[in-house]
Structures are given as structure tokens and as C-alpha cells.
């Protein structure tokens, strides 16, 4: 870890925890919990084995929703980018659906996928899919639509077309922007998973927040929030690393 970036970050966290501590001085677990109560609560849920179960459940749902979104969003977005007619037909629709919070779909998701344990997993995955799908398709569309005309013409000039053009020119040229879209999408997906787990499911970090609130165990709520933050940070760091190594390997290291 680079001390030049790590140390200032550590200072930032310390200041925050300090204020948090002062603001919640003397509170009990039924109240707004301070950092110390949170840590004790965290150890408590971890000991019960609940924490691990909830983390796995949430990560599992995000992995499915995000992967499906990428699997459908990237090829569809690239097709929209390449065929202006298709784009003119569907891009306004995509942009109209995009601002609808995935949470608004929750009631419909429950109706569509039913109420059993297995199907409520599906409805959570569906919401995550929605949240990740829009940034992915949008970035893939614009990556291809804004392909440098010189690359397209070079390929044309040397008779490189069809699938070969796609593999050797379009995909690598679009890659940086697509990766940025994926990173953004993963961040949003992780935000949405918590909300998606507040209804219908009985596992996950979102469920832990909701269930602990109902039980008036605010220390478990804040413990879940800390875990969500840490995992979110880890996911983003991992994604940033994937991004930079993928680009560096292709001679396109940023900056």
C-alpha cells in the first residue's frame, strides 16, 4: 500500500470516527450507536455466524445481477452503438427507463417472481440487474458510437471487417469506456443490494439492517453499515485494478 495515499486516508477516517464518537457519547444500543458499540455489535453478529451468511448472500446476489447485466448490456450496447437506426429506436427508451430507481420496481418484482424463498432471491437479483444494466449499456453504446473514425477507416482500408473488425478494432477501442461503465455499475449494484434485500428475503446485509431495526438492535444496524462500506470499498478497488491491468496489458495505461 502506498503510504502517500494511505496516510491521508487514514487521517480522514480517524477524524470521522472521532466526530462519530463525540456525537454519540453515552448512547445505548437502542439509540444512535457510537463506534465502540458498533464494533462490539459487529463481533457479536460475527460470532453468531449471521454476518458471514449475510455477506455471502449479498455478494451472491450482486454477482448474479451484475454478471447478467454485463452479459446482456455489453453486446446490446455495442450493437446500439454500431447501428444508428437501432440506437435511434431504443436509446430514448433506455434513457427514459434509466432514471427510475430500481427500488420502484420492487413491488412488481415480487409479483413477477412470486413470494417463495427461491423466487425472492430472483426479485433481488432482478433489481440489481436493473441497477447495473443501465450504466453498462449506456457506456457500451457511447464507446462504440464514438469510435475514432481513423480506426474504422484503417480497418476498412486493410479489408478487416465483420467479426474480425469487432475483435481486433471495435472491442479494444471501446474497452476503456466499457470498463469505466462496469466499475460504475458495480458501485451502484452494491448500493441497491441493501434496498433490494429489505423486502421478501431473509438473508443479506439489507435484511440484517431491516431485521435488526425491527428488533431495536441499532448496534447490528450500524455494524451492517460498516461491513457494507468495507465491501464496497474492496469491490471498487478490485474493479479499478482490473481496469488498469487490462488497459496496461493493451498498451493503454491511463496517464
Amino acid at each position: 500500500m502506498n503510504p502517500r495515499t494511505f496516510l491521508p486516508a487514514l487521517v480522514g477516517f480517524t477524524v470521522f470516527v472521532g466526530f462519530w464518537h463525540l456525537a454519540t457519547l453515552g448512547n445505548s444500543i437502542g439509540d444512535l450507536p457510537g463506534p465502540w458499540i458498533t464494533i462490539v455489535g459487529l463481533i457479536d453478529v460475527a460470532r453468531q455466524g449471521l454476518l458471514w451468511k449475510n455477506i455471502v448472500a449479498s455478494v451472491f446476489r450482486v454477482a448474479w445481477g451484475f454478471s447478467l447485466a454485463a452479459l446482456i448490456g455489453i453486446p446490446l450496447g455495442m450493437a446500439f452503438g454500431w447501428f444508428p437506426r437501432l440506437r435511434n429506436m431504443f436509446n430514448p427508451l433506455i434513457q427514459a427507463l434509466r432514471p427510475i430507481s430500481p427500488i420502484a420496481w420492487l413491488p412488481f418484482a415480487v409479483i413477477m417472481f412470486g413470494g417463495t424463498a427461491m423466487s425472492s432471491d430472483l426479485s433481488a437479483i432482478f433489481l440489481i440487474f436493473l441497477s447495473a444494466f443501465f450504466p453498462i449499456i449506456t457506456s457500451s453504446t457511447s464507446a462504440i458510437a464514438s469510435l475514432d473514425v481513423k480506426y474504422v477507416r484503417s480497418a476498412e482500408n486493410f479489408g478487416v471487417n465483420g467479426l474480425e473488425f469487432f475483435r481486433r478494432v471495435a472491442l479494444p477501442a471501446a474497452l476503456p469506456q466499457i470498463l469505466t461503465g462496469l466499475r460504475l455499475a458495480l458501485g451502484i449494484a452494491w448500493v441497491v443490494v441493501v434496498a433490494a434485500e429489505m423486502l421478501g428475503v431473509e438473508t443479506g446485509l439489507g435484511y440484517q439492517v431491516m431485521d435488526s431495526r425491527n428488533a431495536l438492535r441499532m448496534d447490528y444496524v450500524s455494524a451492517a453499515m460498516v461491513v457494507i462500506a468495507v465491501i464496497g470499498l474492496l469491490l471498487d478497488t478490485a474493479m479499478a485494478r482490473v481496469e488498469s491491468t487490462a488497459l496496461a496489458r493493451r498498451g493503454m495505461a491511463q496517464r
Partner: protein
Amino acid sequence: MSEPASKIVVRDVYKTFSTKKDDVQVLDGVNLEVREGEFLAIVGPSGCGKSTLLNCMAGFEKVTSGSIDIDGEGIVGPSRKRVFVFQETGIFPWYSVWDNIGFGLGKKMAFDEKHEIVMKYINLVGLQGFEKAFPNELSGGMKQRVEFARALAVEPDVLFLDEPFGALDAFTRLEMRREIVHIWQETKKTCILVTHDVEEAVELSDRIAVMTRRPAVVHSVIDNPNSRPRDPDDSGCRELKDQVFEILGVERRV
């Protein structure tokens, strides 16, 4: 004395671009003949449509009316026999120098054969030792060399050069001019150079086509009588420069 064979014949070419607001007429009946194996420069005021003319000759754009024949046949589209060198390099940043130069050679070619060709052109443009480098590790001049090598590797008849030195610094530009003359003398391709730099045109070309403002026509084609190697500062070259500037309507103070 027999006339050299015509490589490209441009006849009464009109080109209009339609935008949302109105139509912009760029080429207004251009006539031009490019001879086999010659180095022709096309100069004109910026925005006059010289690049558009080059794009039409390369088959990237269609003419509105008129015809462009290459080897006696109308062009249908871009071809490996006529390669375009872009203003700011069109080489691919995700490919190494080796892969860029081999790009046009096709997948079916055996590796050994491909390697031999790629290395031949790496040597020609003086990039030995940089086979594995990526474009972002190269200077502007070196990138342009890669693009020349990529173009030459498919052994085209014609090179279209669209202000190929425009993005380079002054020193590199001079160096690259010498390089391109060397490449041209070695390979004897038909070269068509679009530039707004009259001195560059005088130094490099056999003939200079001077275009007018938009909507453009070719005002005149001037023979370049100076023998190579040329010094743009000697009297023959200066005279030719003045002649071109006069047609372009630019007063030169001595």
C-alpha cells in the same frame, strides 16, 4: 516524348455535405490527373476541401457527382492497394509496433512470412528494437513511422498522405520529410500528399496541384523542375514557392 500513364483520373467531381441546417458545397467540379509513380502534392487554403478530395479518392467518401477512376476503373470503396496515412496517426494503441505493422497482412499468412515482412518494414523506417513497444511509448515521429510501415507492408500502389506531418514538431517534421522522400525513392509508389504547407509541397513533390477556396476547384497544376535532393532555401525552390503563393493570392514580402 510519351506521356506517363495516368494512375488516377478525377473528372468533374462535385461534393456536397448535408448538415441539419443547410448543404455545404465543398468540391465544385474538380479535375485532376495523377500519374503512375509520381509524387503529387495538393495544396490549398485550410478548409478548402483538399482532405475531402483525398477521402473521395481513397473511397472513404462518395462523390456527389462526377467520377474518379483508378487504373481505368471507377472506385467502389477502400482497397489494400491504396493505403491512407492519417493526419494524427491512425495506428492502434492496443497493438504493439509489430502487431500494428502486421495488421493489414491478414490472419491467414504464416507467422514466418509475416515476421519477415514486418521486420523488413521496421528496418525501412528505422524502428529496429521497437517491435514490442506500444504506441504510447513512442514519440510522435516514431508513431508516424509505424503508420508508414503499416501502410507499406501491404505493398500498395498508391499512398494517400493526409497532412501526415501536421501534428509533429518542427524538427521531427523536417526529418520525416527526408524520410518520406527516401521511402518514395526506394519503393516508387504513387504518392498523393495533401498539405497546407507550401514549402513541404515544394520540397517533396513532382507536381503541385493548387486548389482554390471553397467551393473548390483545382486552379492549376505546376511542375516542380527542381532536382532532388532539394533545399527549400535555394532559388529554384523559392521561385516555385512564390509561384504557388501567388496563385493562392498571398502577397510575399521579400
